[in-house]
């Protein structure tokens, strides 16, 4: 068999590997530092769903953005997101990344996080219960099965629009673009 047949034959087991061993990068951004420790300790055990916490973004494939995002945090989030290897999934936790939430009229928070990095799923609530994280993880499994969790592919294809939005808020960025941008727009 040739290379294409092998790739097709391995796609289903690869999806099972992605789903059942999500490694979440340990980054407490915002209000959600209160509901993440109960999730990863023994009362609501996240390890029965396969979700563990790892130390660096180079080892992770799930990014939970817990709570509101300010302008300084956005820089750290973009750098962390770009260091994660493909395929990667992001979940927005709480109602603040969706549309600004309770701080909709603040001069220092980001209102729609979807304009800057791609998000695959949202969890509503302020703060959501720990069981809501597990429901979100099972929804993410069905999305991965149907090939609909494609945030990282969208980031690669539309990178120049994302980067233009990031530069509008943060000014001149210190790191070079992740994917090459054509000069003829």
């Amino acid at each position, binding site marked *: 068999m040739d290379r294409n047949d092998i790739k097709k034959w391995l796609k289903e087991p690869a999806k099972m590997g992605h789903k059942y061993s999500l490694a979440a990068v340990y980054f407490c951004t915002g209000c959600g530092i209160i509901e993440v420790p109960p999730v990863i300790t023994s009362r609501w055990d996240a390890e029965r769903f396969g979700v563990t916490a790892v130390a660096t973004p180079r080892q992770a494939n799930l990014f939970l953005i817990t709570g509101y995002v300010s*302008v300084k945090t956005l820089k750290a989030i973009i750098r962390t997101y770009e260091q994660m290897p493909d395929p990667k999934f992001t979940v927005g936790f709480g109602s603040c990344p969706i549309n600004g939430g309770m701080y909709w*009229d603040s001069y220092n928070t980001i209102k729609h996080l979807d304009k800057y990095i791609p998000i695959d799923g949202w969890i509503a609530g302020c703060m959501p219960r720990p069981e809501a994280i597990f429901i979100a993880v099972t929804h993410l499994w069905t999305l991965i099965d149907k090939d609909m969790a494609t945030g990282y592919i*969208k980031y690669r294809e539309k990178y120049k629009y994302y980067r233009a939005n990031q530069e509008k808020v943060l*000014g001149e960025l210190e790191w070079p673009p992740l994917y090459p941008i054509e000069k003829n727009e």
Partner: protein
Amino acid sequence: MQEIESTFKDISVSIPEDTKLIITAKKEDLLSILRFLQDKGYNHLALISCVDWIEEKEFELVYIITSYLEENEYTGREKINIILKTKINRENPQFITAIPVFENAEPYEREIHELFGINFKGHPRLTPLFLEREYKIPPFRKDFDTREYVKEFFNKIPFVDEKK
């Protein structure tokens, strides 16, 4: 309380409750009043704050001073909170730093410089503390409208899904 009135002229003292003392002073006397209070035993600077009175075109700096215990005995002096206020001009605001008297005044003055735009002479490190971006008017002044700012700036950035 009466000692303060006798030592300094041109200030007014009022006692609204039995645990509070509000002193209004001129800005030239401020450091000497702080030193006088520190000698009397009020050695904890709790807060330096600023209020923007836009109609009278003045900033009002507020210093809140309380006291710690002395050798595990309650003398009744610890209950008293002293609120010391002074007014400075709103155009080109300048003031001197209180670091020679109370060493923990440094981050409070840094924050007021960043959010209100008041310059403190003699401060060793007036770099930005919280903010990342530059604003035309310092954000906590009353003529900076945050809802207008959000409408003008954040809501005008386009969504990525609409572009093909």
